[in-house]
């Protein structure tokens, strides 16, 4: 397992949020957040590529 460093205050907020949202640990909340962000970035990249293709084909401006 790799370790990352985050601000102590952010960690405390994450700990409280994890407990409220039913996560088993802060680690689980952080892993979920990273997964979601990676998915979002992947989607944004894919949509950019789709938009370029559609523009090339003349379907959008």
């Amino acid at each position, binding site marked *: 397992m790799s370790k990352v460093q985050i601000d102590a205050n952010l960690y405390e907020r994450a700990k409280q949020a994890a407990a409220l949202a039913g996560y088993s640990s802060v680690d689980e909340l952080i892993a979920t957040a990273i997964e979601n962000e990676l998915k979002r970035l992947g989607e944004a990249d*894919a949509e950019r*590529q789709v938009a370029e293709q*559609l523009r*090339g*084909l003349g379907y959008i401006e």
Partner: protein
Amino acid sequence: MGIETELTIVSGLPRSGTSLMMQMLASGGMDVVTDAIRAADSDNPRGYLEYERVKKTKEDPSWIPESRGKVVKMVSSLLYDLPDSERCRVVFMRREIDEVLESQEKMLRRLGRPSAPADAMRRSFAIHLERLFRWLPTQPRLSVLVVNYNRLIADPRPEIERVVAFLDGRPDPAGMLTAIDPTLYRNRVSPTVA
């Protein structure tokens, strides 16, 4: 609310059979909204049946009220731009993705424009469609019927029946059938139906 007061949209990825569905609905007696700006060419010998103003729907949706009760073509990514209050019937065309990609590549080549590698586009279109089909069910104002192009060409009648039922019996099935010309089914990558 009924089909007479709602906008009917034919959508999908480019080269997935949207022009064919537009032609079928026109042949079935429905009014289609088109400005004929994009003329027929070797990629679409029967014409595109497009309406330029749909491309600017986000900035200017004023074309919509006068188009209710009619059919308009709108590429998949533009569905997000429809106003929140607009009730629409969406006939969404799906086609084997490799056929779509091959056809798009040919069209881009003819236009002298670049195309991303097929593998990258396949992945991006998959993400695009997955995201779109996650979003569509959250939009109760948009009723969606997915029509498979490959199945439509292979056995038109059952697919036409589905479309007619979805559009409250408005288009004439016999008229729709006359618009299908299997000789225009090019860029076929597999004899199987998805």
